[in-house]
């Protein structure tokens, strides 16, 4: 499926075309489940979140037209933001080690190739310009949806220090991306 194909499925979904919605689910649910699972680190919760994510996609598909994102990025953003909202809403992080998600990041699959390219090289190049631990903090925060509070605890610094730290990194990142 090309990004254009997925775009068509999203637009048809916005017109309440259930056949398109079914196909969209078949094509993208594995990626979006990967997102939910990685952020929530709990299988049951990730399944619940995935349901809510696709309910949102059905309801909000018309919003895709006004977004500048590629179709896969738009879908991933919905799944990420929903999972992060969920994890923020719960009090303590799940201690579900059985989820066994401490796997190494795999090489980008065919899906990733769709979003890869110049933009991809750019962000990795710009992250490489940051100090190593700061780049790791940005990557970790993005992939796992870690909060400032969690990051501060892990790095043993006050919350505001963590925030200044990360903001400075984001500003550097922006400068690099805009070069």
């Amino acid at each position: 499926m090309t990004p254009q194909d997925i775009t068509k499925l999203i637009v048809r979904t916005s017109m309440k075309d259930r056949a398109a919605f079914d196909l969209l689910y078949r094509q993208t649910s594995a990626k979006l489940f990967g997102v939910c699972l990685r952020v929530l680190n709990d299988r049951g919760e990730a399944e619940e979140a995935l349901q809510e994510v696709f309910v949102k996609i059905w309801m909000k598909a018309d919003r895709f037209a006004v977004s500048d994102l590629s179709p896969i990025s738009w879908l991933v953003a919905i799944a990420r933001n929903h999972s992060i909202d969920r994890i923020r809403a719960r009090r303590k992080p799940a201690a579900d080690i059985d989820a066994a998600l401490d796997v190494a990041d795999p090489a980008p699959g065919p899906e990733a190739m769709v979003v890869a390219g110049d933009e991809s090289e750019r962000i990795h190049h710009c992250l490489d310009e940051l100090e190593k631990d700061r780049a790791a903090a940005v990557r970790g925060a993005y992939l796992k949806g870690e909060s400032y509070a969690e990051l501060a605890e892990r790095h043993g610094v006050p919350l505001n220090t963590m925030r200044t730290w990360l903001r400075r990194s984001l500003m550097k990142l922006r400068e690099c991306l805009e070069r």
Partner: protein
Amino acid sequence: MTLAEDNGPERGGDDMFAAEYVLGVLPAEERQIAARRIDTDTDFARLVDGWEIHLSPLAAAYPEIEPPAAVKPAIDRRLFASTATTSAEAPAGLWSSLAFWRGLAAAAVAALAIYIAVPYLNPPAVQPQARLVASLAADGSDVKYLAVYDAAHHEVGLSHVSGERAAGKDFELWMIEGKNAPVSMGVIPAGATAHIVVSPAAQQKLAQGAVLAVSLEPAGGSPTGQPTGPVVAAGDLKSI
């Protein structure tokens, strides 16, 4: 001092707030503030989109994991519990036309602009659910209408924005709901504004947010009861 307060008036404060939202590091309350701003502040929404685009290559690291088979039926139950039918095949014809889809995307942009602008134009106290608007347009066509469905008066008000009908031709308005065949709502009278009365059967479908489309037909309207000419404008109804 909360994180949001510290966001401050300094240049780029919004951009950093957008970046923090996209990165996912903000606490719940700050995320809610950001989400509300995305819905109400287009400049802020654009900053968020910009960061989503910048950071999206990182999402390549998310593995693809097949969800359990029970998830999709659960989604369908949540969304379609009241309808027993399963998915049928997709609509064909004009729906597969690329130009039509491009036009629809343009119409959605315009509709969103109206969606955002209208609360500032109308006093909010007046039955907000009673009106739906659609901006009707299509690629390769200069025909544009603004449509407002007024549920209380059972009529669609059309404001002609641009595009003339050819001599001996008429514009006809259609309602398309789900995968059903277009239903004619009548020939659009010439003029800057027009009102079309909506039949009781169509009222409920419109209230649920159907798509409106305008086709070019022989004078007096389609002889077949289905669109015979090109769709020159279309858009979906949204509540304001």
